[in-house]
């Protein structure tokens, strides 16, 4: 059963020296073959495609399920011969995991590329057909292209021995352009997009937090308490007043008043109201995810396989 572990690793097909022509040929060959396989699959008739996807999904799911549930061999070495079928499967699951991990990284990377290709196709069509908002599509394509070109050129300029330091000391046009595009524009626009949420939250809170019923009063009261507890100055001041009212020492009054400290109220809300309700939601979600995963794994989910 220990199939993958028995492969002679030093002379592997994929172990060509880094930067060698052979490795580049292998990479390009794998790339072309991969895309050919994808196109080939997309042209398969539906009645053939469905079982193929179903089998691949089932095997993938089975592997990870076994990895979680199968007894794990403890303190074994790579040259150890398994004793029996159970240990054999266990060894195989352990040894094959890095290969599966690499396969998953490549597959996920490919999905990223597929997303980019799809995005480009949609927006190129919009530009070609002069869609009403084609200028935005053109902006997206130009920005994407510029970032990719200068990103790759910047990376390539620092690839050789000692080049990184040279580029850091004397940046060229390519490095300046990349810094301008990424550090100057992209990251700041990213921050702008996220910070806009604050304005929407502010406006929504003003319109929705109204004392219309007892339930809304409870919600508003709790929200205000939590917001106050986020303001350190208020928390410190509130607690000082409570301590002052309760008096010093460990008497019954002081003990009772300590319950009114803002931190204590916040902790009570957090421990007894917030956490249990979120936990309940999470459990519900997890059960739903489990059910959906089972449907996907067993090929019952029509949206994917049908």
């Amino acid at each position, binding site marked *: 059963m220990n199939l993958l572990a028995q492969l002679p690793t030093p002379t592997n097909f994929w172990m060509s020296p880094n930067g060698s022509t052979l490795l580049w040929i292998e990479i390009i060959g794998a790339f072309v073959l991969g895309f050919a396989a994808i196109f080939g699959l997309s042209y398969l008739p539906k009645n053939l495609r469905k079982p193929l996807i179903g089998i691949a999904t089932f095997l993938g799911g089975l592997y990870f399920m076994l990895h979680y549930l199968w007894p794990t061999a403890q303190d074994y070495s790579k040259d150890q011969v398994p004793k029996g079928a159970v240990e054999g499967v266990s060894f195989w699951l*352990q040894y094959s*995991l890095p290969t599966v991990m690499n396969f998953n990284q490549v597959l996920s990377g490919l*999905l990223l590329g597929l997303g980019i290709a799809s995005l480009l196709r949609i927006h190129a069509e919009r530009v070609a057909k002069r869609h009403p908002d084609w200028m935005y599509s053109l902006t997206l394509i130009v920005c994407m292209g510029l970032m990719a070109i200068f990103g790759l050129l910047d990376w390539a300029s620092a690839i050789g*021995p000692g080049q*990184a330091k040279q580029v850091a000391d004397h940046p060229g046009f390519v490095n300046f352009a990349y810094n301008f595009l990424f550090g100057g524009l992209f990251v700041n626009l990213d921050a702008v997009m996220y910070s806009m949420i604050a*304005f929407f939250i502010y406006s929504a809170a003003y319109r929705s937090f109204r004392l219309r019923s007892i339930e809304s009063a409870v919600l508003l009261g709790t929200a205000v308490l939590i917001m106050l507890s*986020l*303001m*350190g*100055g208020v928390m410190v001041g509130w607690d000082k007043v409570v301590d002052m009212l309760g008096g010093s020492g460990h008497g019954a009054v002081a003990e009772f008043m300590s319950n009114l400290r803002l931190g204590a109220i916040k902790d009570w809300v957090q421990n007894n109201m917030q956490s249990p309700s979120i936990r309940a939601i999470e459990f519900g979600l997890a059960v739903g995810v489990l059910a959906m995963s089972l449907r996907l794994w067993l090929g019952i989910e029509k949206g994917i396989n049908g």
Partner: protein
Amino acid sequence: MDDPQVKPQMSLGAKLQSVKRHVLYLTLFGVVSLSLILSHLFSIQVPSQPQEYTKEAYKLIRNLHEGDTIVIDTGATNASRGENGGQMEALLRMCMREKVKFVMYSYVEPQCIEVARAMIANINLERSKANPPEPAYKEWDDFVILGFFPDGATMLQTAAANIRDAWGNKKAKDPSGAERSVFESPVLQNIKKIEDIKVYVGISPTNIMATIVGRVGKRVPIISMIAGVMFPEQFNYYKSGQLAGLLNGLVGAVEMENLMQNGIDSQGVAGGKAEGPPIAAPFPGEINLSRGNSYYFAFCCAISLLMLTIVVGNVGMYLERKRKN
């Protein structure tokens, strides 16, 4: 007869309930900008009370030893710099001062690595300007960056089973510029299994903890540095003992910076002066109060404004109901 062109005058209650959106936006913009400027000009410091989960995180990081290796799993981008920026800077400063080595990677977004690199460069610049200047933290000798993993879940599962298999094909440049396996670097050369990593820190505005806790939990102490909006969800992991420490957004960053400034005394009091060796010592005379504290006054002003606006809306509703009745 009434002129249909003349709009009926709105009552005060109706006016208070229907403040235009652009007025609200402008007010928020003005208050936050002004408070940021004032905070910068007058170095306004708002007091804070470090929470137990922040103190636990600080204790764990502060008591690491020179040469220990930790993992920083970053999902922080500039979008969340208000919260994760302060957390990341505090963590990096502590690692550099304690000479703790770190491995960094991301499976949230490829840009996270670039953002983290820029932060490391900024703190190195800050260290070079210190009096006396402190040595720069160097890639390969002091930290390694593994880059972006498109599929974090499988990578973590492999790392939990065999860390050398998971990261074995990752290479980094040594000081001579030659590419070598990251396991030859001083950072990872003694790491044989996931348990050799002293702390696993996840910094992200998104819920990466579900993936991390499920795969490397119980094997390594985990600290979550999360954006405020995700805190209630993450708090469950802390309450159930699956997290060793937790930072709650910007407030968490401020608390961490204040702990770096004041430490935790022998009685477990943040900033206390009890006799005996402190549970977690401060970093006296160093730059501790930084990005988190510089945003905190603006944050408090924004929350105050939010509460004031809610009060205005409710007063308007009360007045309007009273008028109609």
